[in-house]
């Protein structure tokens, strides 16, 4: 079977003093072998919570995975795994890279040991072999003089190098899925490109599937096979990279696209600007979550959640504009141009 991961109806809440924060509200998606999927959305929309849920890394409490959620890895329900099973799953089957390389490495542990750790745990290697493998991994992520560097501590590395080390850690056990949560957000623009390129390379080399989480559509253009756009804990539009870039149908997708700087340089000033803030996740949402910021908002949008409209086998969108009785809306002019 080609389908390696299947997420159905995933809903995650946080119980805080202020009340229940519904961070993820029923998310569905799948991942195929060797495929790169991008989760895109602005800050706070629930991308990280979704990504962490895949490895059950959200602390419970305060987090709660809602009844009815399902995450199937190779047909096996991740949410039902025992403590031992989930430990064997983490690191070995799925690896994860986090946003901030400056804080994601243990400051008091040698780089080599941090890579070797999962090898010792999952591959039954002894310390020496694990360190040899760690040297290889460092080599693969282009760290110079890896034999020496395994004895360094994180503070002796630059941000870009640390993120490479994170990649080495995540891929050490050759996992089938790599989750990269904004792996380049904290890095310089030039280094961002290098790191993405490295990820792409390793992905094809190891035939790993990747879930790339980002708020920047520009990052995924050349990277992802498919893109899912998230807003306020929901996926509002799904499609292949082509479909999203050229045939995007959701007003929020349009907003995201128009904020990609390199793409539509000359139209900068006419850009679809997105005012306001996302809805408060503490409050119930009856209508379209985007309603308060959408320039096409209609009466129905505020009252009822828009249904999902399938546009193609791979492309779907949740917006009342797709309703047959909705007024025809002209897409922003930027989207009609070739990239």
């Amino acid at each position, binding site marked *: 079977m080609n389908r390696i991961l299947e997420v159905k109806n995933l809903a995650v809440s946080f119980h805080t003093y202020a009340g229940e924060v519904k961070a993820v509200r029923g998310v569905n998606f799948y991942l195929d072998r060797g495929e790169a999927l991008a989760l895109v959305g602005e800050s706070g929309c629930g991308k990280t919570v979704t990504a*962490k849920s895949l490895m059950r890394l959200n602390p419970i409490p305060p987090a709660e995975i809602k009844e009815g959620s399902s995450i199937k890895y190779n047909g096996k329900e991740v949410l039902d795994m025992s403590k031992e099973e*989930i430990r064997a799953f983490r690191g070995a089957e799925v690896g994860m890279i*986090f946003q901030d390389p400056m*804080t*994601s490495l*243990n400051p008091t*542990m040698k780089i080599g040991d941090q890579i070797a*750790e999962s090898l010792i745990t999952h591959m039954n290697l002894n310390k020496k072999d694990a360190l040899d493998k760690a040297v290889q991994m460092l080599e693969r992520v282009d760290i110079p003089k890896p034999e020496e560097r395994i004895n360094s501590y994180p*503070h002796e590395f630059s941000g870009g190098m640390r993120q490479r080390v*994170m990649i080495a850690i995540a891929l050490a056990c050759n996992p089938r899925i790599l989750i990269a949560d904004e792996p380049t957000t904290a890095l310089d623009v030039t280094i961002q490109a290098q790191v993405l390129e490295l990820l792409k390379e390793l992905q094809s080399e190891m035939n790993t599937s990747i879930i790339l989480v980002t708020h920047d559509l520009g990052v995924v253009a050349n990277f992802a096979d498919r893109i899912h756009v998230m807003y306020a804990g929901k996926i509002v539009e799904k499609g292949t990279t082509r479909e999203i870039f050229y045939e995007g149908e959701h007003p929020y997708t349009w907003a995201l696209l128009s904020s990609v700087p390199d793409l539509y340089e000359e139209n900068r000033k006419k850009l679809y600007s997105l005012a306001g803030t996302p809805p408060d996740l503490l409050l119930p949402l009856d209508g379209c979550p985007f309603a308060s910021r959408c320039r096409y908002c209609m009466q129905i949008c505020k009252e009822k959640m828009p249904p999902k409209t399938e546009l193609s086998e791979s492309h779907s969108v949740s917006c009342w504009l797709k309703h047959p009785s909705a007024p025809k809306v002209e897409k922003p002019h930027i989207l009609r141009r070739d990239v």
Partner: protein
Amino acid sequence: MLKYILKRVLYMVLTLWIVITITFFLIHAIPGNPLASLARNLPPQVRANYYAKYGLDKSVPQQYVMFLKNLFHGDLGESLKFPGRSVTDIISEHAPISARLGIQAILIGVIVGIVLGIIAGFKRNRWPDHLVMFVAILGVCLPSFVLAALLQYILSVKIELFPTAGWGTGKYTVLPTIALCFGSIATYARYMRSSVLDVINQDYILTAKAKGISNFSLIWKHVIRNAIIPAITILPPQIAGIFGGSFVIESIFAIPGLGSNLVDAVNNRDYTVIMGLTIFYCALYIISLLVVDILYGVVDPRVRVSEDTTE
């Protein structure tokens, strides 16, 4: 590293010298004469000889120079109050007793405090946490001498489990050690708890969890190791606190330690003993500071490297 330690030792000597000088002039500035009660009944000539013997007939600066000279030769002088007892005798006889008590108290205080703090941190807001925090608050509020009196009354007078006071076998050290280390346990438990909570929320813990390593590795290598580092910095004040607390505890449990000698010496204006013990305590404290610094470097690689680069 060697250069670094050498430099530190030099600073230590300097600090020690400053402390010696200040103490020397301070105690000579306090009114009251160490020989007043001893030499009270003596005829003037004998009294003069007596004062001359200890150099007390000379001016204070002269005495200071004399003192430094003798100190340089390792001679701390003789007690004014108990002729025939040299300060080195007093230290070598009583310091091991205080040291045993102090080391026991520090070790137990730090280890138990750290363990309790870790438990409280991991079981946050559950009953072990509440229990530990209760003990910690008690330990911070309850002065050690009150606890000492309480322990003595309950565990020795009411239930005859331990000797009331005195010094001998290990049994004699139990109550004073508890009384002495309770404050440290409390401080350490609270400190460790917040340190653990802080570390648990660090990104690298998530990284470690995502590796699927065992709980033991996670807690030991990632949480505890990082949580302990800040705890080391509060070691010197704890050591100082235990020195201070030992004065009272030694008196309550009639322990022939150095503390009660110092208290007596101050009351008697026994200049030589005060000076000798001040130097001793001060040196001990400075050395413990150095040890803690070195320890800190061992545990925290970030400190180690920055030292190497500055040297």
